[in-house]
């Protein structure tokens, strides 16, 4: 119970009367002073009784439907107040219930975080949109109830109800889809046998001992059981060296914050590192930005390497400036801004077909384009100057027949990627390409579903083209919900085609 200014004003009045009565020798003034004191006292008693009764009946609850929310996404917080049934003789107290938001949440103002319940009303509800600003635990402490007695002499603030805790997750890729033509990929990596006999742990065959076999390889239990010396052959196992090539160019920054192409591809790359760590496989990493190589970690299978790569991937971002690596072999490789601006988007065959069409075309449009085609530099020269291609070519000596090369890129530089994958396939045991389709990362969502569907089909045909290269697997990586929306459109179209003839 906290006194208000009016309480102190009354006390002052009483004190004044008391002193005046003593000075003037007038007992009636002391009676007045005592009367004011008694009045304060009975108000205090009455307020205490009212408060006690109120707390027995009142229900204050705050709740949120969501238990987890991403940073920046609004969540709703609902406050419900019900003062319950109070005795008829006891006048209801006016109530103000105030939410106590954490400092890391925005959206609550002085105006909307309080709910006033006048004496004449019984219930009140309010729903407020709150947005977490940083990741972590958002704890909305129990609301504070403030009330005042009928004469404004005392106030009281009491914590009522329960606290609500909501987890604010950092914005990160959701609904990660890895697959091909819309079909989710079951597993991209796992235990790796080479299906050849050799030293290992998995037995594959039992055969008779022949002269020249190593005696130490005799399986004595089988020999005792079969009465002839036998040798058990084991499946040979070896470690796979994996080299990750991560495209960090500006186009990989497409998408909403935390849900960019790079963020989705990062999740896949992290899985590769974790898989390599669990099998003690050597793994290396090369990052390529707009200016060339940005990060390079030669393959190694030490715990420090796995930790380093995980840290590197977690902090990985797009690199649009010139190369940052001191020993970047492409720093002076002649990659100009013009080269980057006019990145080849066609394969040599497509370029030749395009030039041939222009030759046969007599329209003014074709006449305008022909000088550009004629003056263009040779295709190979242009591709060779592209960052990813240049980086891979400088590292071909790092590749070997046992190396598994994995690319993380998008479909922006199709011709370059195609050439890079071809080159890697010639120098590696296998090549896996993870592509982030640009159509799945358009800002503002899928506003034009028809156009998105066309773009996805174009992407998928490009992905299949990569898969046709020997030893190459290509997968799409992106938000599954967007891909499903596009595929649903495709399914609807098929259904329409099937039903149309029937109706006719």
């Amino acid at each position, binding site marked *: *119970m*906290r006194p*208000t*200014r*009016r309480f102190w004003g*009354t006390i002052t*009045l*009483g*004190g004044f*009367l*008391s*002193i*005046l*009565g*003593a000075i003037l*020798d*007038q*007992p*009636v*003034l*002391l*009676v*007045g*002073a*005592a*009367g*004011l*004191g*008694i*009045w*304060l*006292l*009975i*108000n*205090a*008693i*009455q*307020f*205490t009784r009212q408060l*006690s009764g109120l707390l027995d009946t009142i229900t204050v609850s705050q709740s949120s439907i969501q238990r987890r929310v991403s940073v920046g996404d609004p969540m709703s917080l609902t406050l419900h107040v019900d003062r319950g049934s109070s005795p008829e003789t006891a*006048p209801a107290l*006016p*109530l*103000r219930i*105030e939410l106590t938001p954490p400092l890391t949440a925005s959206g609550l103002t002085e105006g909307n975080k309080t709910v*006033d*319940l*006048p*004496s*004449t009303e019984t219930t009140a509800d309010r729903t407020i949109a709150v947005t977490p600003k940083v990741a972590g635990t958002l704890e909305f402490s129990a609301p504070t109830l*403030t009330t*005042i007695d*009928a*004469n*404004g002499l005392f*106030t*009281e*603030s*009491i*914590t009522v109800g329960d606290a609500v805790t909501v987890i604010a997750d950092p914005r990160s890729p959701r609904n990660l889809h890895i697959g091909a033509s819309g079909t989710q990929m079951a597993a991209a990596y796992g235990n790796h046998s080479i299906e050849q006999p050799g030293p290992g742990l998995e037995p594959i065959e039992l055969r008779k001992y022949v002269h020249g076999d190593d005696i130490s390889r005799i399986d004595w239990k089988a020999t005792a059981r079969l009465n002839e010396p036998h040798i058990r052959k084991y499946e040979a196992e070896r470690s796979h060296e994996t080299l990750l090539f991560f495209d960090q160019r500006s186009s990989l920054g497409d998408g909403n914050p935390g849900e960019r192409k790079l963020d989705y591809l990062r999740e896949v790359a992290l899985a590769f590192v974790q898989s390599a760590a669990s099998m003690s496989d050597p793994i290396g990493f090369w990052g390529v930005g707009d200016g060339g190589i940005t990060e390079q970690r030669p393959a190694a299978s030490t715990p420090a390497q796995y930790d380093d790569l995980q840290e590197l991937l977690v902090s990985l971002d797009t690199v649009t400036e010139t190369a940052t690596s001191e020993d970047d072999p492409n720093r002076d490789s002649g990659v100009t801004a013009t080269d980057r601006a006019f990145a080849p988007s066609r394969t040599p065959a497509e370029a030749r077909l395009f030039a041939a069409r222009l030759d046969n075309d007599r329209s003014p449009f074709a006449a305008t384009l022909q000088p550009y085609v004629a003056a263009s530099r040779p295709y190979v020269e242009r591709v060779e100057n592209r960052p990813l291609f240049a980086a891979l070519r400088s590292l071909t000596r790092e590749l070997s027949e046992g190396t598994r090369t994995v690319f993380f890129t998008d479909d922006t530089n199709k011709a370059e990627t195609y050439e890079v994958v071809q080159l890697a396939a010639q120098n590696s045991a296998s090549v896996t390409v993870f592509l982030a389709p640009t159509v799945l990362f358009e800002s503002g969502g899928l506003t034009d579903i028809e156009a998105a569907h066309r773009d996805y089909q174009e992407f998928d045909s490009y992905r299949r083209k990569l898969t046709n290269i020997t030893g190459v697997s290509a997968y799409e990586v992106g938000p599954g919900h967007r891909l499903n929306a596009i595929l649903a459109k495709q399914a609807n179209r098929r259904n329409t085609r099937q039903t149309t003839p029937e109706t006719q």
Partner: protein
Amino acid sequence: MTDRTHISSSVSELRELTPNSEANGLQTKYRLVVLLGSIALLFGVGRQLLALEPIIAGGLAVSIGIIGWFLPGEYAFASGHIGVGIALPSEPSVVILALLELSLWALLILESESWQSALRLGTLGSGIAGLLAVVGWAVLYQTASLWTVSLGSAAVIGLALYTVHRYEIVQLGLVAEAEQ
């Protein structure tokens, strides 16, 4: 818990949520009746029994009426006592004193938000006042000076207020918060 500055700033806003907040107590028509009745009682008694000059009685009545109308009831209560103190003879009879106090208490009860509340307030106030008057006042008045009476009354009321405050804290389970 909300800080005290914030609480005090919201006191006036909270007061707005009480019924009859505009009249600040009982509804205006009852307020007028009670105010005029108490002034008439106060100065009718004074005029007849205390032989006040009409101009003094009228002036006091108007003053208390204005104070009682525009200021909270406790100011009318206090100013009424000052007026009575000036006009009253040194040895007033108990009946006269009781009548005067009754009219002045009516001014204070004007602050109540309902008749039920006023009745309860009056009953409780009479009980406490009677107890204080019978047990303490008479004894102190006979044996000590008014200064002692004044300090004694203040101490008793202060102690009673603090007791109610501590009782409220314990009753509502606010001990830990109060200690903070």
